[in-house]
């Protein structure tokens, strides 16, 4: 039986530790025990780090005697295996980094604290490319709600860890929905902050113009607290925003009275299953009942979001993954001559989806195709941003499903890239526009969780979180540990 403390939110646990009712070491031991108990069924992690968690928790308990500990620092956390952790193996779910130990920590982790109580490095689709966590060289992660189904992706390990109580919260990364969609499929809260809100330094790059680190948590208050812990400008990431970090908890309970909420009509029709759509409709009715002004809004270019994303992201991948060449780190397959060494190392080190995206991106950027694909996609991106701008003139917060379906079966879509890509249909317009969005569990469809996606304008996370908090309160859903 899992320990009763595992039923608390991260915020509640942190308060108990701050009040000295529980020590950080006890919390770490409880998290480790839960990992031990459940990991064989779920496989949330590529690498578990129980000794490290205990060692760091001891340090926090020692430091606590002198005060100066931030509220969140004592909470055991799962870290997606794409974030660099000094001296702790970081694979990105890829064989090419099987034995890679980074030389420094990601800035987001350093912001979290001197010694984050990390329970393990969470499983993921290789280099964060995928929507099911099946593209990992380290086995499939199972959805804690139904072990024969996928947890979503690419942050599927982080989502499963939170749903199963392997730690109280997790960090994921989101390029085209990789925090939000697995959060939706595993019945937890996933936030993609505004592009640039959280430093990408030490986040191993997938698509640099889209990547963003985000909190994966049990509820919206935890999401606000974890964002508080990681946000901030970082001179080491030139794309990180030099914008003041507000207090994300201050107006959290302010409610939605008078808030203008627009439901995106294009994301409530074709391609969206009726179950998720009905759950979203019920939550929107709830928000209206709580005082929000609800209407419908159109994003005319949203249908071009998916094709534009599947040009821009692979194009950036083909460039970013060029660094895995057997020279400075990772796998090297010996060969006679440099070119052959590159080819063989990359042939053996990369999995199917990574290869597919490298090929797609190289093709789209190659001579003769550049204007028709990459340049055109960048212009579509401008149109999508204009659509959102027009929508935010009329509405404060926009709403859609997070994912067009509930969790699907392991193996169901893995041989059909286009079906897998369609999972991202509601998520990618947000990514292209760089705006923040959060997925909140809205209820169940066929016994499986459905995520409601809320979106708002750049750097308006306090309002977004307030709306999400209200959505969570009107939703027919309560977090309980699975399985």
């Amino acid at each position: 039986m899992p320990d009763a403390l595992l039923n608390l939110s991260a915020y509640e646990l942190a308060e108990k530790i701050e009040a000295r009712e529980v020590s950080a070491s006890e919390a770490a031991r409880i998290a480790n025990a839960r990992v031990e108990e459940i990991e064989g069924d779920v496989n949330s992690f590529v690498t578990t780090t129980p000794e490290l968690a205990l060692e760091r928790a001891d340090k926090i308990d020692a430091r606590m005697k002198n005060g100066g500990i931030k509220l969140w620092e004592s909470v055991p956390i799962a870290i997606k295996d794409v974030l660099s952790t000094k001296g702790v193996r970081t694979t990105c779910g890829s064989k090419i980094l099987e034995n890679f130990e980074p030389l420094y920590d990601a800035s987001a982790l350093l912001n979290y604290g001197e010694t984050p109580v990390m329970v393990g490095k969470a499983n993921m689709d290789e280099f964060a490319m995928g929507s099911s966590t099946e593209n990992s060289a380290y086995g499939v992660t199972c959805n804690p709600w139904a072990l024969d189904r996928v947890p979503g992706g690419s942050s599927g390990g982080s989502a499963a860890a939170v749903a199963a109580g392997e730690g109280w919260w997790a960090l994921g990364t989101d390029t085209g929905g990789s925090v939000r969609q697995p959060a939706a499929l595993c019945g937890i809260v996933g936030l993609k902050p505004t592009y640039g809100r959280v430093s990408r330094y030490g986040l191993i790059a997938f698509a640099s113009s889209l990547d963003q680190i985000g909190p994966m948590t049990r509820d919206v208050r935890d999401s606000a607290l974890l964002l508080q812990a990681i946000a901030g400008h970082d001179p080491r990431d030139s794309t990180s925003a030099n914008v003041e970090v507000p207090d994300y908890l201050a107006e959290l309970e302010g409610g939605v009275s008078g808030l203008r909420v627009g439901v995106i009509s294009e994301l409530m029709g074709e391609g969206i299953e009726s179950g998720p759509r009905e759950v979203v409709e019920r939550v929107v009715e709830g928000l209206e009942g709580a005082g929000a002004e609800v209407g419908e809004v159109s994003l005319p270019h949203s249908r071009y979001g998916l094709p534009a994303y599947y040009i821009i992201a692979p194009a950036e991948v083909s460039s970013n993954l060029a660094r895995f060449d057997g020279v400075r780190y990772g796998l090297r397959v010996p060969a006679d001559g440099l070119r052959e060494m590159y080819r063989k190392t990359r042939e053996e080190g990369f999995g199917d989806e990574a290869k597919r995206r490298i090929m797609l991106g190289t093709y789209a950027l190659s001579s003769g195709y550049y204007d028709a694909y990459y340049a055109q996609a960048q212009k579509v991106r401008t149109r999508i941003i204009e659509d959102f701008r027009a929508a935010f003139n009329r509405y404060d917060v926009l709403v859609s499903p997070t994912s067009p379906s509930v969790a699907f079966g392991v193996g169901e879509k893995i041989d059909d890239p286009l079906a897998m890509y369609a999972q991202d249909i509601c998520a990618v317009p947000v990514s292209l526009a760089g705006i923040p969005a959060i997925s909140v569990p809205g209820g169940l469809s066929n016994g499986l969780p459905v995520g409601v996606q809320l979106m708002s304008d750049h750097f308006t996370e306090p309002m977004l979180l307030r709306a999400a908090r209200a959505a969570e309160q009107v939703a027919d859903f309560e977090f309980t540990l699975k399985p």
Partner: protein
Amino acid sequence: MISEEEVRHVADLARLGLTDEEVRRMSGQLGAILDSIDQIGELDLTDVPPTTNALNLTNVLRPDEPYKCLPPEEALSTAPDAVDDLFAVPRID
């Protein structure tokens, strides 16, 4: 469809080895993906400026000052092969 010859050419640009079976599979899959993304061509976007950064950031500058970085032996500690404080590679062809 994109031809197997084209697949091999693109793989060569990407320095990516592919088996014959992968080349065959990639030819069909990339063709299907490209067919589905071709729809962006139907938009007339002649005068629309491209977006490279959603926040319109340009020219982020910092003072050009020396700072402490990784010592060579540490930077080389993750390398598959190193000689005399340098990354070592096979013969360049």
